[in-house]
């Protein structure tokens, strides 16, 4: 445990490295999937494929920003992981409520069940890690609330 200050801890060490590895796997697989979909059959399910490409971009941004710690990249990491969470929840819900909108699957369809539910769990782990590294001594503190030194 760090003993001094409340300075943010780097996001790319320790467990963060494992998290980044998992993010990289999804960045790669989502990029591969959407590239194939858009190259080979863009007209079949434009919405699903556009979402696949969007998901890929979000995963790439999250991977890069977590792997390169700094005030700016960490802010962008917060953004990417939050968008990821909203994405998997909204797309997961829509794919069940309005299956006709999704003739083909995206990474986030059915809350990522096709990928062992990892896409659903990952943003929560990402946010937990960002909270923890933002305030190493007060894990889980509410963002924006100043902690007393």
């Amino acid at each position, binding site marked *: 445990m760090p003993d001094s200050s409340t300075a943010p801890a780097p996001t790319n060490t*320790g467990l963060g490295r494992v998290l980044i590895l998992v993010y990289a*796997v999804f960045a790669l697989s989502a990029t591969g999937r959407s590239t194939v979909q858009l190259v080979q059959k863009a007209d079949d399910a434009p919405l699903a494929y556009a979402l696949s490409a969007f998901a890929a971009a979000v995963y790439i941004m999250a991977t890069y920003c977590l792997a390169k710690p700094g005030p700016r990249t960490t802010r962008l990491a917060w953004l990417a992981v939050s968008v990821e969470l909203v994405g998997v929840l909204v797309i997961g819900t829509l794919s069940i409520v309005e299956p006709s909108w999704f003739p083909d699957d995206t990474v986030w369809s059915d809350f990522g069940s096709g990928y062992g539910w990892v896409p659903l769990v990952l943003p929560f782990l990402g946010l937990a890690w960002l909270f923890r590294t933002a305030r190493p001594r007060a894990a889980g503190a509410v963002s924006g609330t100043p902690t007393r030194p």
Partner: protein
Amino acid sequence: MIDPLQTLLIALSLLIAAIATVYVVLDRPAGHVLLGSLGLLEGGLLVQAGIGIVQLAQGDGDGVNGLVFVGYLLGTLLFVPAAAWWALGERSRAGTTGLIVVGLVVPVLILRLQQIWTPAGA
């Protein structure tokens, strides 16, 4: 596709995950055993990619999506060294934990390869 080799690669990969787990539990840094196993795995994946591409070129795969198939073959081949480099970049418990991830992801990739090689039915 090339069943005995792929089954072997899946087993080796899971073995790497298991060994890495033991190392994490004992809090020991990854050593020759893990590095050697990773090298062996990568060698096997290289053979798999070679055989797979030759089989595809000979037209063995019936209705196989060539782009996806080759993408998975090469992607798997690049994934292991890249992920291992990243995981071992930090000699710590967490770094070794990264090797567990590698060992668990590779079997999934190989299983997907087999699905791609035998499209619907068969």
